[in-house]
């Protein structure tokens, strides 16, 4: 990747940019050139924003979300329901649910899912804190919003077991035909799940 015309500072910038998702060495080089070309309007503000984010953003000690405050804005919001906690795998999933605006309770970020083959064990996930939160008096429902994958559902079943003594209702997201989905292209599992969850029209 090293080019004769670029100094070590540019090389370092390109190498670091190439580590970002969606960027390879070539696109990183283009991004670096773009940044250098717009030093005042793009590069310096970006550098400031990155430094600011690195200094201030932290994981919420209650739910695991990322925010500048601890507890995060979602945990601190007074207008949210305390009775329901939605369990998600990553902060990205939390953001996706927030974009949809379908849930008005609190969240809990697990930080991954159990994986027999990748060696991810219950101790590696933020499960102990979830059990603590589920045991609080005002919590009545835990929604397991985990991916419909083998690992995601293994984790959901494990959590359902762990949460049983807490006396809360444990629910999971429904599975079925997605918006714009065509039956012909759906896998057997989704079709079977959709049939089981059919409702009157």
């Amino acid at each position, binding site marked *: 990747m090293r080019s004769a015309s670029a100094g070590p500072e540019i090389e370092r910038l390109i190498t670091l940019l190439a580590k970002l*998702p*969606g960027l390879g060495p070539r696109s990183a080089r283009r991004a670096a050139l773009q940044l250098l070309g717009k030093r005042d309007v793009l590069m310096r503000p970006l550098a400031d924003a990155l430094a600011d984010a690195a200094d201030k953003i932290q994981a919420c000690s209650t739910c695991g979300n990322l925010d500048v405050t601890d507890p995060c804005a979602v945990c601190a919001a007074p207008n949210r329901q305390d009775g329901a906690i939605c369990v998600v795998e990553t902060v990205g999933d939390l953001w996706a649910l927030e974009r949809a605006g379908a849930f008005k309770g609190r969240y809990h970020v697990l930080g991954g899912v159990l994986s*027999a*083959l*990748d*060696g991810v*064990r219950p101790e590696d996930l933020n499960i102990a804190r979830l059990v603590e939160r589920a045991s609080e008096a005002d919590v009545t429902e835990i929604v397991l919003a985990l991916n*419909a*994958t*083998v690992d995601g*559902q*293994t984790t959901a*079943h*494990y959590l*359902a*077991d762990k949460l049983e003594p807490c006396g809360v209702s444990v629910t999971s997201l429904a*599975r079925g035909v997605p918006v714009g989905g065509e039956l012909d292209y759906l*896998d*057997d*599992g*989704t079709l*079977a*799940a959709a049939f089981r969850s059919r409702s009157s029209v």
Partner: protein
Amino acid sequence: MEWRDRGIVLQVRPHGETSAIVDILTETQGRHAGLVKGARSRAMRPVLQPGNQVLATWRARLSEHLGMFQIEADDLGAGAVMEDRTALAGLNSACALAVMALPEREAHPAVHAGFQLLLQAFEDPDLWPAIYVRWEAGVLSDLGYGLDLAKCVVTGETEDLTHVSPRTGRAVCREEAAPYAAKLLELPGFMRGRGAIEKGDIAMGLELTGYFLERRVLWPVDKQLPEARTRLISELERVGAL
């Protein structure tokens, strides 16, 4: 180099942003890995779930290369198994054990056939635990560490075989086993294809196969029984299937 076969997805490891290294168990090629480009696309993710059966075409310039898979959906049964937590624990355990115990690129058609049977059996909660135990015994047998359950190692008797010697893996009849019962492993009748599955049989069978899998297959390569198997045992215990 190119081959095409039906296979069962065992493991999917992300590789880069869009690809994955997928391990599948095929009838003619055994456990085989390959790179699947676009494996994390919306269309491929449901197909590449452990336990799904796929049609795989493997291509590489040289046989020793990792090679690339072209995968098509064949029988996507993983979705149905996901609904049943005990069956899901069974699927996870079988996949983890296949990845750990089976050598790569060595055909084990009987193990593949047994896995297919197990996948079909997951619909029947009373039946599949016994098939799982028989499948593990089949893995041992195919790897060359088979249990000899045909006759008593001491008397040659073929009836009333109740125990297995932990040293030789050969069956022992009730009469000869009595003085050494504490040192021998119990042999459930269903493992010899006889009698109905009774309470305690699955636990006995899992202990028996686990003992030999651990000592003969996994310990020599510095591995332990997969945690998914421990979780399966707890799950079977929870539902009272042991």
